[in-house]
């Protein structure tokens, strides 16, 4: 069972068969994380570099843990301070790291397409950990894994993605991932935050929560980025929370055993009500656990190439 590609840059570029391979590869590694000694030698002697141009604790920690549990040597590199300020380009920074014989580079960057630029310029494998608003494929993969774990099947499920879809790489990756695996996707949010032509991707667009959640099996909440307020995208947190916040009442509108998901970090009381975040149907913490497993599976598959 092999993934014949050097990089994981987007969900848009993955075939459904490849997605299935990745999800299957994650299974045994979930078990490893549950052991007393959370270690397997699969990536022993390999070097994994977390190249994070944008700050991130959870994603970086998740990749770091995943690599370490596979026995790889891990380096965390945050060029937001030194070399970029000194004017070094993304490609030059990466080539420097490649010259230290990095096997896998995990990249997070604020520019859409940054992972593509990197993957074309170096021989090391590149995993896109989030490039601007474009994609965050490992997030979508762990989301698929989580849904599959709880619901058994992805095909035919109704999934609602709620919030600032336009600026969300999590939304984009999930839209591609879920539609490829046969789920029915709808998005809900203020029109200022829904990009055009989503209907051409087979996605239904709603501007009101109360219409949108009826019969939905999975509700995926997106984090509201508060700085968007100054860009006239929404008038106030108060209004946003009132119109689009996931309250207990709104949860009742969805299907009976609907899953509540969120990529984190959550803004309690904004996009998700306090009690909803803590409720049994919120699998948010499962997502985090599965994230490590999926990333372990992915790095394992990529290392098979070298």
């Amino acid at each position, binding site marked *: 069972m092999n993934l014949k590609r050097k990089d994981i840059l987007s969900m*848009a570029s993955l075939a459904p068969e490849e997605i299935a391979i990745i999800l299957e590869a994650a299974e045994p590694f979930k078990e490893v994380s549950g052991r007393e000694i959370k270690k397997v030698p699969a990536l022993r002697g390999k070097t994994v570099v977390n190249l994070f141009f944008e700050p991130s604790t959870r994603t970086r920690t998740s990749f770091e843990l995943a690599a370490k549990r596979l026995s790889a040597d891990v380096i965390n590199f945050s060029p937001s301070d030194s070399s970029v300020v000194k004017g070094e*380009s*993304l*490609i030059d920074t990466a080539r420097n790291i490649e010259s230290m014989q990095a096997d896998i580079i995990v990249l997070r*960057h604020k*520019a*859409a*397409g*940054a992972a*593509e*630029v990197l993957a074309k310029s170096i021989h090391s494998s590149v995993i896109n950990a989030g*490039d*601007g*608003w*474009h*994609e965050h494929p490992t997030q979508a993969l762990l989301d698929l894994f989580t849904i599959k774990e709880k619901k058994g099947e992805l095909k035919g499920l109704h999934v609602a993605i709620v919030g600032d879809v336009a*600026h969300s*790489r999590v939304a*984009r990756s999930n839209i591609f991932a879920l539609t490829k695996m046969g789920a029915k996707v709808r998005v809900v949010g203020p029109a200022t935050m829904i*990009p*055009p*032509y*989503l209907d*051409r*991707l087979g996605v239904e667009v709603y501007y009101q929560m109360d219409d949108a959640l009826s019969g939905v099996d999975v509700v995926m909440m997106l984090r509201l980025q508060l700085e968007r307020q100054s860009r006239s995208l929404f008038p106030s947190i108060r209004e946003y929370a009132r119109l689009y916040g996931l309250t207990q009442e709104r949860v009742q509108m969805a299907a009976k055993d609907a899953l509540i998901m969120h990529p984190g970090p959550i803004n309690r009381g904004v996009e998700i009500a306090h009690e909803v975040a803590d409720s049994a149907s919120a699998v948010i913490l499962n997502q985090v656990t599965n994230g490590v497993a999926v990333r372990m599976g992915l790095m394992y598959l990529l290392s098979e190439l070298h």
Partner: protein
Amino acid sequence: MKILIRGAQVIDPGRTNQIGDIYIEHGKITLIELKPQGKAEVSTDMQIIDGKGLIACPGFIDLHAHLREPGFEYKETIATGVTSAVAGGFTSVCCMPNTKPVNDSRSVTEFMLRQAAAANKARVFPIGAITKRSQGEELSEIGELFEAGCVAISDDGIPVMNSLVMRRAMEYAKTFKIPVIDHCEDLHLSEGGSMNEGQVSTELGLPGIPNAAEEVMVARNIMLVELTKAQFHLAHVSTAGSVRLVRDAKARGLPVTAEACPHHFSLTDDAVRSFDTYAKMNPPLRSDMDSHAIKEGLRDGTIDVIATDHAPHAPHEKELQFDSAPFGIIGFETALPLTLNLVDEGVLTMEGAIAKLTSEPARVFGLSHGTLQIGADADLVLFDPSQTWVVDPAKLHSKSRNTPFGGWTMKGKVMKTIVGGRVVYDA
């Protein structure tokens, strides 16, 4: 120096479209003999160019190019720019003022003209800045710019956002009978955008520049033309809505003209899917519908002129993540074959296509070139309309390589370019 071009298809838009012989002497066209009987007086001091199978037409006139000098010589100089221009068949180039310093004064204009004279290839007609340092606030000394040799005014790469300033610029320019050119873009609507806002930008998660960002300003400018009756030229029109607005303005008899660039009728925003910065320019590549509207606009005369917006950038500037790369592609050497595609597609006749590059630009800017009349300056291009060639960016004559057409097979090759009776390019 005497030149005889023998047996070419002589196309002088609106005047001639027949096999003929062209005689050039002392830098002027002295005689055109159509359907020549071979009775021509051939002297030994004459350079004879065999025009069989070739088209001979006026040298192309580019109303919109960036020669980058002074200030950005690492991207292009006037010398390398005009070398690339003549390789593309352009004998006249109008260069934009977004140099460093901005061309808002006689001294910069004169410097550009001196550099062009030293390079001695294509003619250079500077376009002066509308406002001082193109800040969009105070008018530059347009009278002085005109006297120094500017043929039009513009603040291109950026729009004049303040409508009162644009109004005054239009009124003031009327004194000198030179057109005002605006790069139509509402900077608020386009804010942060790096490609067309559409399905592709939705899929790529790249901030988009909506059609409305251009159309809002096209409409504003047309309204100001109505108010001031000034001659106005719209740079690089890229959307269906803009074409519609210009068509309507012309129907009402307003002195509005428009240009389109080859990339806007040859590519769409699909070209950006791989995050290729060589397909990044402003205004951006738009959708299929817009591209069709541009072609329709060229066909029905709404769009008067084809211009390149030749915009060189160094490799280290373009080889970056998409949002950090500067806007712009080079265009002199691919303009002809891309324009000839329109002839193949039935959008334009051969004569009509040549007009968009010659007589029409001359008319819009009031230039005396763009014609093969007897006594006119001998600015000509000889091209083979059927020869194919592959675009190799490394072999182009510009200092920069930023073209999205690398590897494309083009049909239509410039064989010789003549400026003032001198062969300045020989393929």
